[in-house]
């Protein structure tokens, strides 16, 4: 799994609350059996018009957001469906971190297993970044997970926290399954003690 330690890049702004995973990647793209190839269909219904051309009214199509590796958004980003395809699409598109006021639980679980960093900032800090990202010139940010710091040109600086396990997943790009399998003896012993009526299937 890919790790995240520190990254500098430009930002795109999606100034909305409650962006659900159906918007991040609509259902018709969940039929594939691969983990990659979702970047072009990220935010499909918002990003393209019915003829398949870029919708100029959609934020991500603005020229100053082209090539962005950070996405700035509002609260409750990633709510709804558990589809990991949403995270795969954000990563394939080129995003390394999403900065918002809050995130949905399953979305965060999916993020940390795919090298996408969810950065929770205060509403005031997001409002500050939002106004900077509205300008015509690209907003360059540096996000440092080891230090727990976001900084921007022009004096912006903020701290963020991530729960220790999730932080470790991202910093080290862990093979979580391999890690759990090291506890094989404990799992086997736990299984032996399970009551018989739970072995039903």
């Amino acid at each position, binding site marked *: 799994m890919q790790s995240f330690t520190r990254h500098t890049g430009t930002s795109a702004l999606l100034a909305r609350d409650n962006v*659900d995973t159906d918007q991040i990647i609509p259902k018709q793209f969940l039929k594939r059996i691969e983990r990659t190839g979702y970047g072009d269909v990220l935010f499909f219904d918002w990003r393209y018009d019915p003829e398949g051309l870029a919708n100029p009214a959609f934020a991500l199509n603005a020229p100053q957001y082209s090539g962005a590796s950070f996405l700035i958004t509002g609260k409750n980003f990633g709510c709804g469906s558990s589809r990991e395809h949403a995270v795969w699409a954000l990563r394939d598109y080129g995003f390394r971190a999403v900065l918002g006021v809050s995130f949905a639980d399953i979305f965060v679980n999916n993020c940390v297993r795919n090298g996408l960093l969810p950065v929770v900032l205060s509403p005031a800090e997001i409002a500050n970044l939002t106004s900077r990202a509205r300008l015509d010139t690209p907003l360059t940010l540096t996000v440092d997970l080891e230090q727990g710091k976001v900084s921007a040109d022009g004096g912006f600086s903020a701290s963020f926290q991530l729960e220790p396990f999730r932080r470790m997943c991202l910093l080290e790009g862990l093979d979580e399954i391999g890690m759990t399998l090291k506890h094989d003896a404990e799992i086997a012993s736990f299984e032996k003690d399970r009551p018989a009526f739970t072995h039903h299937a």
Partner: protein
Amino acid sequence: MPQRTLFEKIWDSHVVCSGPQDSRILYIDLHLVHEVTSPQAFEGLRVAGRNVRRPELTVATLDHNIPTTGNRFVIEDALARTQVETLRHNCREFGVRLFDLDSPEQGIVHVIGPELALTQPGLTIVCGDSHTSTHGAFGALAFGIGTSEVEHVLATQCLVQKKPKTMLVHFAGALGNGVTSKDMILGLIAQIGTDGATGHVVEYAGEAVRALSMEARMTICNMSIEAGARAGMIAPDETTFTYLRGRRFAPQGAAWDQAEEYWRGLSTDSGAKFDATVEISAAQLAPFVTWGTNPGMSAPVTAAVPDPAQAADESERNGMIRALEYMGLRPRTRIKDIAVDRVFIGSCTNARLEDIRAAARVIRGYKISDRVQGMVVPGSQNVKREAEREGLDKVFVAAGFEWRESGCSMCLGMNADKLGPGQRCASTSNRNFEGRQGAGGRTHLVSPAMAAAAAVAGHFVDIRGWEYRD
């Protein structure tokens, strides 16, 4: 031992050992699998040379991507067909039981788990699907996971988790006539918001919850995720035990007695502390109808679409303006004046036998409106067979509804069942997100009886005044 909540009892009894940092390795008793979120997980196992640790605790079905009409065994969509065949292949290769399309027990994963009593009190249950919270109605700890976690459970029968917080939602008093568990959960989400329970496992309690059937309890727990909750649960009681007894995978004989004794201990100790508590007066709930593009945007059927001018802050106002524009609605339109083009009775939220019966009772002796296309998609083959045995299919067909085969269908529109752009639908499903039921489609979430009444009237009506012809 300190006083513990229902959740804490189940959590504590499933911690295998500490994991890295603040995490715990949690044992999973039942892993449900479907075709959409599993192919990459099985492929991951294959690439790493790993096996499914406990195939007998893993159960798969086909539901999201399958036709509900015509010959359901022929899937014309090549991508969907590949996904279905991939699950079949993976189940064969790794020795996982599959309830395939030709199985008399096939159905939506969250309908068949309980129906077959795979779902039981006190278990930990996961599935690569956010509506896994449904199974919490039995006093299980059940939650949705992503595909990487699906792979983790396949390989280890465990998950690495941080302990969530707890929330008590207490429904005091009794529901009025015509008000259902769908309205309880929509009422809760309207009150606390779509992120109101984020980070929490919710326990639903109170007189109104105790009075509910198992099927009605499943509807509440199902939509816990729409309030952001990690899971929703209800302590098991006689209603739970009566439902489970004798079902296919329920314990039998002495094993049942042993299980029941254990299950009876699965309730929150008096004095146990929750991190948050919400009080709701069940008696004051009305039938709800969503008007916007998330499940928190709803109003009682007697009310009107709100005016963004009255929003609490700018962010809420912008959200409302966007939602009303997408939904093609004006502020202050009466809910009862909203006309519908389509009616969908189905989904893991509301496609169980009681839901089908409630809708059938409303339409018996009526025809649906000329302007409405109605479809009923039973949650499982068992539901379909039982409804047909009761003659309910004939009631729907006589009224002008289509009677379909079981599957997820137009809840998410992965198959051919979709709304067209601009079409407005009264739906018994769980999400009214933009495009959820088809690009440009407009979804209003309601209970099965409210959906049926809207089909007849051609617009929303208050089910509490319905003239039943039975």
